[in-house]
């Protein structure tokens, strides 16, 4: 199908762009360093004496992504607008949707690659004990979906501006709000202001609450649906913003 071919072409170019700049290598090295440090030093991987990855490994991911994913997503549209290639891309015989999905998929695949490179942690835990690899897989899946949600939000902020730094800051703030919404102290604080149903509605938008189930190895369709709908909604918003720019 030609729609798929167009998406693939856009994605291929975008993915190539990550690796021709130092961004990809810097990102991967820092992500792996952070994962390693936090898992083995701060997470107390060895002290726990448990063959599991939830507490020492996956628990940090929402916080790593908070800073790292906006750094990956900030250039997606801001750079195209700054250089003027957006005009080139959108006058090609492809739809805006194909361009948006192609670019998103490329970055998401890149994040998948970075995540996959943490495999030594899985090998270590399997070498030392007998973990439930199903739970670990579920954790990876959740982590990847969550990264996708962060990324999609970065797409919105990237489409809003020509300046990558502004895109980065705004998306960190947005993601932080979504992250904190489900954390204990914040929920307590909110319940002083809003009715319990409002508070639980806000808390249910939190990345942390939905990701927690994946960490435990619970693959709930509602959690999958949550992240997928954040992605779809954000990409839709990106399309609206791009259309707005073109309207002038």
């Amino acid at each position, binding site marked *: 199908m030609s729609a798929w071919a167009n998406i693939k*072409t856009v994605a*291929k170019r975008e993915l190539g*762009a990550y690796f021709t700049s130092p961004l990809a290598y810097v990102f991967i090295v820092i992500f792996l360093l952070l994962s390693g440090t936090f898992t083995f030093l701060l997470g107390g991987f060895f002290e726990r004496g448990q063959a599991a990855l939830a507490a020492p490994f996956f628990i940090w991911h929402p916080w790593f992504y908070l800073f790292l994913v906006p750094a990956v997503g900030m250039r997606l549209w801001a750079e195209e607008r700054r250089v*003027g290639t957006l005009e080139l891309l959108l*006058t090609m*015989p*492809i*739809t805006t949707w194909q361009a948006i999905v192609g670019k998103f998929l490329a970055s998401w695949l890149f994040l998948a690659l970075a995540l996959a490179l943490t495999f030594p942690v899985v090998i270590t835990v399997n070498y030392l004990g007998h973990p439930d690899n199903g739970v670990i897989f579920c954790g990876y899946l959740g982590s990847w979906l969550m990264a996708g949600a962060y990324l999609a939000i970065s797409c919105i902020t990237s489409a809003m501006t020509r300046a990558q730094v502004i895109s980065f800051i705004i998306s960190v703030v947005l993601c932080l709000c979504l992250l904190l919404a489900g954390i204990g102290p914040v929920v307590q604080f909110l319940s002083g202001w809003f009715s319990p149903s409002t508070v639980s509605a806000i808390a249910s938008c939190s990345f942390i609450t939905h990701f927690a189930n994946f960490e435990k190895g619970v693959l709930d369709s509602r959690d999958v649906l949550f992240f997928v709908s954040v992605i779809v909604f954000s990409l839709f918003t990106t399309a609206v913003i791009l259309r707005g720019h*073109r309207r*002038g």
Partner: protein
Amino acid sequence: MRVENVIQVDHLTKLFGVRRAVDGISFTVERGEVLGFLGPNGAGKSTTMRMITGFIPPSAGSVMVGGFDVAENPIPAKRMIGYLPENAPAYTDMTVAGFLNFAAEIRGLRGDKKKQAIARAVEMCSLEPVLHQSVDTLSKGYRHRTCFAQSILHDPDVLVLDEPTDGLDPNQKHEVRGLIRRMGATKAIIFSTHILEEVDAVCSRAIIIDRGKIVANGTPADLRRKSEMAGAITLRVSGVAAAAVSSKLYQIPQTKRVNVLEDKNKSVMVCVYPKPNAADGELLRAVGELAQGWRIELLQPEEGRLDEVFRSLTLPDTEPKSAIGHRASAIQK
């Protein structure tokens, strides 16, 4: 060859807030035509081109490319168009070869067809020396040609070129003009420019737009005829007083005005402007007969100049048009 309107622009309008960037312009371009799009900065040239290529939607009016409405049916319309945007953007992190490969694939070219298309475009734009160089290390000329190569990859029926010679050196300008002229035989081409000599060199027709409106539309010769200078006679004689020459020339019925351009060393140079209804060549004959008693050093009919037409049509109305014509000719002489 069958004559067809490949591009049809109908009452195209674009509002940015309350400003009318493009204000109800209509024109057509046929296959085999090269249309020059002229106008001062901010006249609406780029905005019009962006609407033709489907980058921005019009506020009102429509653009048809090859029978497809660009707003309603963008994909088949965009397939027919090759576009060189202003400032020739290209992905700076790619090599020239990688960039052209991407452009070819997104145009749906695969395999051998893709290779041939890229090879042809690379040859036409002389890009071989930089093929494996990264775009952000290219000189402006090469970068421009890279983006130009992208626009002709799929051998489109319609080419929209926004200032294709901007930033090129004179040799490159000459090459690009030649390229446009050659391709113009089989395609419908619109290109915008500030450079008036380009209109003569390349265009079969030219449109001048100012503040979003078309102020002139015709062949370069048509446009030149709008000039006050068109049909004027420049005469240089010696041994006669300027006043005498001038009063004699005013006796010719076709004379509208006589300008003394130079009066020194007993040599007088004047320009005689014809009345608007004077037939071609009439004034020249009359001046020629009249001047027989003088020592003629120069007797030359003027064709009219595009720059003068351009200025008189696009300058704010506060300056009288004749004054502009006068000054322009005085500067040139």
